[in-house]
């Protein structure tokens, strides 16, 4: 038990101030630049299919807005008492542009400062943002699926309609899928890349 803090301390002391390998530095800089795409592509998608909608309905979540068949989805969901989905119901769209901006800033800074602790900070920021986004999305989904209008035309005892967090779920006549879109994949890719870089730096320290 008493070893752990000492190892941490050793990690910080020995490595934190070390410069990154040139390849790592370039990769970190490029990854931060790659995140700029988040302003131009959708981050997340919800797809739905029903017998009447073989071509499917989609809702795309962007950094500051929604797109796709949002009106149609709302029109269908009002029968079971779900709220009308509107951009204004998501305060996240107000601050996500700054949050992503901050992460890009940390990434670029990591490349400029060129120290390993900044790489760790950058990875931590991405992972925390990812976890935060999923928790936030889950909480919204819970509310959207459970907080139903008591005067809804269709009420089914014990039924709630929380959309899937990630993956596929059957909700009455709809099959719903939730998962990352291009922007989300880029974020995940950057996360994996940073994890790999940390591992690479860690190994190269040993040799």
């Amino acid at each position, binding site marked *: 038990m008493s070893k752990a803090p000492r190892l941490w301390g050793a990690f910080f002391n020995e490595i934190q101030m070390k410069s990154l390998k040139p390849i790592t530095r370039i990769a970190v800089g490029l990854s931060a630049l790659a995140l700029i795409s988040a302003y131009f592509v959708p981050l997340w998608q919800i797809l739905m299919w029903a017998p009447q909608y073989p*071509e499917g309905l989609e809702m795309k979540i962007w950094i500051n807005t929604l797109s796709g*068949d949002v009106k*149609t989805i709302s*029109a*269908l969901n009002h*029968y079971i008492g779900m709220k009308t989905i509107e951009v204004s119901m998501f305060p996240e769209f107000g601050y996500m542009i700054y949050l992503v901006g901050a992460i890009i800033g940390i990434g670029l800074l990591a490349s400029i400062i060129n120290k390993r602790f900044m790489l760790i900070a950058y990875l931590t920021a991405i992972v925390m943002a990812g976890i935060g986004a999923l928790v936030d999305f889950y909480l919204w989904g819970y509310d959207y699926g459970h907080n139903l209008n008591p005067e809804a*035309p*269709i009420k089914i005892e014990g039924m709630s309609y929380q959309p899937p967090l990630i993956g596929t779920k059957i909700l009455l006549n709809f099959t719903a899928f939730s998962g990352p879109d291009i922007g989300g994949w880029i974020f995940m890719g950057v996360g994996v890349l940073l994890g790999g870089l940390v591992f690479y730096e860690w190994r190269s320290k040993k040799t």
Partner: protein
Amino acid sequence: MKTIIKSVVLLLAVATAFTLNSCKPKGPQEAIVGNAASKVYVNPGKYDEFYNIVSGGFNGQMAIYGIPSGRLFKILPVFSVFPENGYGYSEETKPMLNTSHGFVPWDDLHHIALSTTKGEHDGRWAFGNGNNTPRVARVSLKTFKTEEILEIPNSGGNHSSPFITENTEYLVAGTRFSIPMGNKDVPISSFKENFKGSISFIKVDSSSGRMNIAFQLRTPGFNFDLSRAGKGVSHGWFFFSCYNTEQAYTLLEVNASQKDKDFIMAVNWKKAEEYIAQGKGKIEKAKYAHNVYSEDTHSATSTMEQEVRVLDVTEFPDIVYFIPCPKSPHGCDVDPSGEYIVGSGKLAAMMPVFSFGKIQTAITNKDYEGDFAGIPVIKYESALHGEVKKPGLGPLHTEFDEKGNAYTSMFVSSEIVKWNVKTLEILDRVPTYYSIGHLSVPGGPTSKPHGKYVIAYNKITKDRFLPTGPELTQSAQLYDISGDKMQLLLDFPTTGEPHYAEAIPASLITPNSVKIFKIEENHHAYVAKGEKETKVERKGKEVHVYMTAIRSHLTPDNIEGIKLGDVVYFHLTNLEQDWDVPHGFAVKGAANAEILIMPGETQTLKWIPDEVGVVPFYCTDFCSALHQEMSGYARVSPAGSNVPLKFSTGVVEEAGSK
């Protein structure tokens, strides 16, 4: 011995009777070859290869079928009212059927022409003719709605129409019956002196498709039957079949069948264009309606045009030439190259094929046999490429494939005859059931036929389907023409009475097919683009209801303050922006039809309440699980009552309140 003889005689008699009976000719034979079913079977959920756009004849509509399945997809109202979707009943569509005679709710649609560019299908518009009250119509192949109807003045019936030029520069409208021009009150027996023919050249705007009559040719008085534009080498010319050159005005059956030869009239329309550009011709007074439907306002407007420019062909003899053609020609069809013109004398025992090149040489050499009313008549032999000998009885129409073959319908002998355009040799014949009129090869009238099938549109159905009393469905047959021999694949019933039809590859239509109208682009004067914009307004005796429909309610659905003597206009906007979610609307006792409103569209139903009470209205298109709930009430109070104008949705009041 006697017994033996008797027995032998009896046996002989029986044998003879038996033999005679087996010699008795059998009825028409059918040869369905084994794999026919698999060639027309389109798997559930799969699409047909071709759209078949078929005239409805006396139903005044077009019908849309799939080929090779023969399945009916849509009846598309053009010249006739259609209570099924409110065409001609909604305030927006009523102007479409306006004419110089007022509102004419019916016509007889005979021929289809699909727009072409460089002689090939471009998938933009379908044109149709109104044979009775002379009109032409333009239908959008994006929305499958009638967008424009133009009345034709100086016409006694618009039959040789709406055939089009290679780049859809013009479509034509030739009068079927000659008449005294300008509504003159003259004795019928003064035909030769007073009756004239008229051919309208209608210019089609290449981007909007808008039609207007560029000029009319005034011709000698006889009947114009069918026509085709030249193409390729003969681009710039138009060919019309003429009958009743006898100029009979009674018992035409006999009196218009006297001459051995009538005419095919060749028109050099480029030349006519030159004269028009020089300001030649006379502007004549004429009254004709021009009706245009706007996708922008989802409404039609009707304008009464006042004049038309007329070129009398007897004054401009280098526009028109006559070519003798045997026995009352009907079809007058031009092959894909534009070189050959097939005349189908419906009473003749052979079919002449004329050569455009030879016609030009004959004109250059003035190789004429005389003139008719001052117009040169080219020598038959000088224009002739050759004759198809003994093709069958009653040749009517000819279509072409991509391999140099022609397919001619034979009304009397009830068959399709395949022959080679160059060699004039007959290659094959198949029976049709029965008495084929028009026929269609996909792309058959274009420079680039798609081939593959020929479809027969028959005049007699008889025993082909389960009988339905004296009035039967009409019938069509589909034949495979990909091989040397034509193969019967399918019988399918058709609506109305199909005359001409065209088939076009689905790939030219499907990608552009409109799914919804964008609500933001709806500029209807009475649109409500959301429930917040709904209202009820009184303008004197008129009550205008700005109503919206979305699954599954109408807004407003409670309306009070309507009084006897009012005229109520329900302006319904369908707020849906989703594919295939139309809403419908009907009011109890309304002397009107329903209206169907497509997503993003506004349509208006006029209602004149005729009694005091509370009148339900409802959505007529089963739109959703709660469609039966999609309804409302209009309260009608006595004239002079002081019930205030009031409207709401979802407002529940205390019982007993006023």
